[in-house]
């Protein structure tokens, strides 16, 4: 069976080299112009614990990681248990495991025991005896996969060379040898047993795709937007952003500083922005909880600020390595008082870059904090992205050039006293910064008048609330762009957000294949939400499925504050956080709704 689209999973313990095997496959494929996804998952151990990789390769552009796995490579059944919820196998999945990894039948789930094609490979043996180095087990297994499923041969060799080139040359040879051993074993097996296997279709290699994670894309989007200051504090799954910028920002005269905690990292970013440069910080849920007071300060003092939250399972420390969409309501309401700010969300890896350029555009133009919601699923998964598409985001969309802040007009400064918080139609007042003459002012979190002087007068408070909130009216119009998918005439509508986009589109395609038309709306600017657009969508559908991956249906809760959702139309489909929105369940729900409507 030839496939243009293949999903596979690798499971083992840390020492097995699960992640590097996965990375080699994905990069190899991308190097030949294929499209791919890679999603890693780890247990609580720092090193040596259970780990897994889900991989998807395709000739055509991909929407999602792929729900069901066709091929499972398992180094160790002991580690498999942890992932039974995360890795779902197709009915006739091919299982490949190590002959040496003995396990009692009763310790195996039914889908493994019942598998039609379970190939036990003497991986350990091959590596230690044939290759002569037990550590090459994962590379041998790559050879096996290559042989069985026609994974991109040249690409894999290329990655091996690249990976070991910095170390010793004989390592390259050793590993290429390991590949050959694995491939040969597979070929022999095939000849002898002729198993029925999915094989990757023939394809013509073309220009290599870039391979990057959502966190990296977000960091790059920020750099493109003119980011000059990043302060952060390590936290899973957001640390990658800081680590990537640590090496890039200084090259472009920017500064990255690891702060002593999240309050400090947010405070530093606010200070840097006050001082005139584009600034941001990135964290995950617990960090946002700590930054809440600072975010309110940026609202009140009208300081441009971008804060990324790469969501993880909550509440509290929760499940740091799992994904989640459960910080939405916090993003909207974390700080005390009436504090106008903006919440954006990115839907896939490429969109992370795009969303960041928007975030800077809005925060600089309107002088307020913009929270960008990613999650572990989009932030840490690796995707192939055509180089051209990413550059389009960077250049052609034109956001980047447009995101400079309004500074006071020198001529006006020479004539009139500078009023930092001057009342204007759209609420935006020219903002000076240290270095500009005749425009010094006092910024504060205390309520203030147009000069920035503290007041406790209710009338001025009302006026200033009005000024700050007016910005949202304008942002709402500027950011009304939303993603529409599917059949514009469909009676079934889907509303979701952020990283749920991929799985949801996948489910739509499957429904379409089953003859069910659906349409979908995904807002990228969640606050302020262009509610008219959403309301129109709701009004035009007969049924609306509102989906997210949070235990308390946060997206639905939020939508209720913004639009009317008649009970008769509403289908609530929220999932516990920890995992991306499951395609299967969404598809089942679509079918159910379809039957109801029929």
């Amino acid at each position, binding site marked *: 069976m030839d496939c243009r689209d293949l999903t596979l999973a690798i499971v083992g313990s840390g020492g097995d080299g699960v992640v590097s095997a996965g990375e080699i496959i994905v990069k190899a494929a991308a190097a030949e112009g294929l499209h791919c996804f890679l999603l890693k998952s780890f247990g609580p151990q720092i090193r040596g614990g259970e780990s897994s990789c889900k991989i998807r390769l395709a000739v055509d552009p991909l929407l999602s990681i792929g729900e069901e796995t066709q091929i499972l490579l398992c180094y160790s059944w002991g580690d498999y248990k942890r992932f039974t919820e995360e890795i779902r196998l197709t009915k006739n999945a091919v299982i490949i495991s190590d002959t040496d990894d003995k396990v009692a039948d009763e310790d195996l789930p039914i889908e493994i025991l019942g598998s039609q094609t379970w190939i036990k490979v003497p991986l350990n043996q091959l590596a230690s005896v044939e290759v002569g180095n037990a550590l090459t087990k994962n590379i041998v297994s790559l050879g096996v996969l290559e042989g069985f499923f026609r994974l991109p041969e040249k690409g894999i060799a290329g990655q091996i060379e690249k990976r070991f080139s910095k170390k010793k040359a004989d390592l390259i040879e050793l590993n290429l040898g390991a590949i050959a051993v694995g491939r040969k074993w597979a070929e022999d097996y095939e000849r002898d047993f002729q198993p029925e296997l999915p094989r990757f279709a023939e394809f013509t290699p073309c220009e290599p795709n870039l391979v990057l994670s959502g966190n990296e894309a977000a960091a790059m989007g920020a750099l493109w937007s003119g980011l000059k200051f990043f302060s952060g504090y390590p936290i899973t799954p957001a640390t990658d952003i800081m680590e990537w910028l640590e090496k890039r920002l200084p090259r472009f005269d920017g500064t990255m500083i690891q702060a002593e905690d999240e309050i400090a990292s*947010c405070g530093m970013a606010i200070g840097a922005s*006050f001082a005139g440069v584009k600034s941001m910080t990135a964290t995950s849920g617990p960090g946002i909880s700590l930054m809440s007071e600072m975010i309110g300060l940026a609202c009140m003092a009208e300081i441009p600020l971008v804060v990324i939250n790469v969501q993880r399972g909550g509440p509290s420390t929760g499940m740091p390595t799992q994904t989640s969409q459960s910080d939405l309501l916090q993003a909207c309401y974390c700080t005390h008082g009436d504090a106008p700010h903006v919440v954006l969300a990115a839907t896939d890896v490429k969109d992370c870059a795009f969303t960041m350029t928007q975030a800077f555009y809005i925060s600089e133009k309107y002088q307020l904090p913009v929270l960008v919601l990613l999650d572990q699923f989009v932030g840490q998964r690796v995707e192939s*992205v055509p180089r051209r598409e990413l550059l389009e985001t960077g250049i052609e969309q034109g956001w980047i050039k447009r995101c400079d802040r309004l500074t006071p007009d020198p001529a006006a400064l020479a004539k009139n006293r500078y009023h930092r918080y001057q009342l204007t139609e759209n609420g935006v007042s020219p903002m000076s910064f240290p270095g500009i003459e005749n425009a010094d002012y006092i910024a504060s979190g205390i309520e203030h008048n147009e000069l920035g002087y503290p007041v406790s007068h209710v009338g001025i408070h009302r006026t200033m609330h009005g000024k700050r909130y007016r910005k949202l009216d304008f942002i709402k119009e500027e950011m009304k762009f939303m993603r529409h998918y599917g059949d514009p005439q469909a009676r079934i509508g889907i509303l979701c957000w952020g990283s749920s986009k991929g799985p949801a589109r996948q489910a739509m395609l499957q429904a379409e294949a089953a003859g069910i038309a659906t349409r979908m709306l995904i807002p990228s600017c969640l606050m302020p939400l262009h509610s008219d657009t959403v309301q129109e969508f709701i009004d035009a559908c007969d049924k609306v499925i509102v989906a997210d991956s949070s235990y308390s249906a946060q997206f639905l809760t939020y939508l209720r504050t913004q639009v009317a959702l008649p009970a008769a139309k509403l289908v609530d489909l929220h999932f516990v956080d920890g995992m991306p929105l499951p395609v299967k369940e969404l598809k089942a729900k679509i079918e159910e709704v379809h039957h109801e409507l029929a």
Partner: protein
Amino acid sequence: MSLPESSEPRPALAPKDYKRDLKPVWCPGCGDFGVLNALYKTLADLNLERHNTAVISGIGCSSRLPGYVAAYGFNALHGRALTLATGVKLANPQVTTIVAGGDGDGFAIGMGHFPHAARRNLDMTYILMDNRIYGLTKGQLSPTSEPDLVTKTSSLGNIERPIDPVTLALATGVTFIARTVSTNIKHMTEIFSRAIKHSGFSFVQVLSPCVTFRGKTQYKDYQGDGVIYLEQTGHDQHDFHAALKVANNGDAYQLGVIYHVHTESFGVRYTRLREAFKQDKNSAVLDVVNDFLP
């Protein structure tokens, strides 16, 4: 601080030129008036440009200070002034950065930031206006309150041992440390001036009486025998262990420069780092996409 180079000589400003037209909310007799006046004088003495000076504070009576100085100012959040100032200085290094605030602001809620600002040795000056009480919230215990002090939250007397900010500054590696008193404008002005000129993190503890919640006692304590001027005792400012001995006041408050050493600031080191990162690297921002080629 490194004084900015200017092409043409600027007209000298007088202390009053650094005064903003906002009336202090402080109580009549508050020590903070003295600190403010000394700061005006210092800015004038150093002929600092208003537009290249930033005064950052937290929340408290003392933290109102930036509002009264005609320069860039930020009256931020309780305890967080140092974090904002760090951002200001790193983003805009030519700005003379001054942090001011109270004992609660700096050493209760703000405690977590001080040792880090200290060890980074960023080029800024932190003026602690220490009244050993919470003024703005009307008289509760502060981390510098004396043992047994009766306050609104210690009605039978303070049972905690106070923090000594100067000892802490020494322990965390501050490179310029001084103590002065708000009743002596001349001394304050000299100390502020030296602190601002120091390139690196400088810390000045000013004993600044709170007449409303500490009564007249503090003014009395800071008079006559109550204070010792280190300038007159031959104290060696460069001796760490000597500094530790005079840090914690015994019977009298020890005033003057307590410690002074030169160490490269974070800013200087970071600039060098930038150069190293730039070696053999592309400089077009859009080219970083190539880092992702498989």
